[in-house]
């Protein structure tokens, strides 16, 4: 008779006291978060990070669950960026994004390259010159590519934005809270 398959796993590794167990992520692939009624073309207000308070245009949700947004760069300096939907206020203003082609962009677009990692590895005192000439050249072309992608995605957006009065200025301004604003009463 074949041995009954053990249903309970018995470990053969017993931890000693002074070993710290680091957080082990059980789920390998990120689960895309459910989008709470955010529509492509909607203006979002970023709540954290370098671009706090900036109003940006939402393009699409990436596989990782993060939201792909863009300033557009020319208008408020926010590039193509991934943003966590928890740190965002969706407003009711929508921009027409039918002409915008952001299908090429996915999570890999934002992955750090070897050269970048090497630069980060070297630490605080690392200078650009630390990269080899070949790496510098690839970096240059990579950045050029990014600039072009940004331009091509933003071009259609900016023409759509220009159609509405004051929308360009609106996206260029930051959202602020003053002494008398009551955020819980504001309608976005």
């Amino acid at each position, binding site marked *: 008779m074949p041995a009954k398959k053990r249903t309970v796993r018995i470990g053969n590794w017993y931890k000693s006291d002074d070993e710290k167990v680091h957080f082990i992520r059980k789920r390998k692939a990120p689960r895309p978060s459910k989008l709470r009624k955010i529509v492509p073309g909607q*203006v979002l207000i970023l709540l954290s990070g370098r671009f706090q308070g900036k109003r940006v245009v939402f393009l699409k949700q990436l596989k990782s669950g993060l939201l792909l947004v863009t300033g557009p760069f020319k208008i408020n300096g926010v590039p193509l960026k991934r943003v966590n939907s928890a740190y965002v206020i969706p407003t*009711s*203003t929508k921009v027409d994004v039918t002409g915008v082609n952001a299908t090429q962009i996915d999570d890999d677009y934002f992955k750090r390259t070897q050269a970048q990692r090497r630069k980060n590895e070297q630490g605080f005192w690392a200078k650009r010159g630390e990269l080899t000439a070949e790496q510098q050249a690839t970096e240059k072309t990579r950045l050029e590519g990014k600039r072009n992608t940004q331009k091509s995605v933003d071009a259609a957006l900016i023409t759509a934005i220009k159609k509405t009065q004051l*929308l360009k*200025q609106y996206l260029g301004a930051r959202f602020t809270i003053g002494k008398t604003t009551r955020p819980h009463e504001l*309608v*976005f």
Partner: protein
Amino acid sequence: MFRFRREDLYQMNIINQYIYDICLTSLFKKIKRIFKQQKKFVLLEMVLTKFVEVGRVVKINYGPQEGKLATIVEILNDKRVLIDGPTTGVQRQVIPIRRLTLTKFNLKGATRGARTGVITKAIKKNDPIAQYQNTLAAKKVAKKALRAKLTDFDRFRVMILRKRRSALLSTQLKALRKNNAGGKLAAQAKGGNKKK
């Protein structure tokens, strides 16, 4: 100006009669004129003008029907009334007077204990609720409600428009000041910018 007590006015009335009897018509006319003025003055002196009465249009201050208008149909005691607001969605109900604000409008044709149909007919003839919406108080409430509904983009637009209007006004004011150097400034007409 003269300040006469009510007793004095009665006295004046008596004097009126007496003088009339003597047929001093010109003096009588003068006194009558004074009496009329005083009577008017006395009427203006009345501090309380809005009464809880049948037909009074009221605004509900408290409860689920807050902010709606209705008409007083019957007075039950010194604290409760029966109101009805068929055109404003207020069901016929007994409500404490404490929960109401009296408006200065009266519904003509409302009789004591009138049924909803009668009230509706009276409103159709002469709508005091529409008149109320034109008052400053109602407009302020409407403005506040509109402002609460503004979206983020709307608030931004309002801010920009207010700035523009202010800039326009200041340039106008400067020009006026220049022209009227030393004289009195005329009242400014507000610009035509749309402001919520």
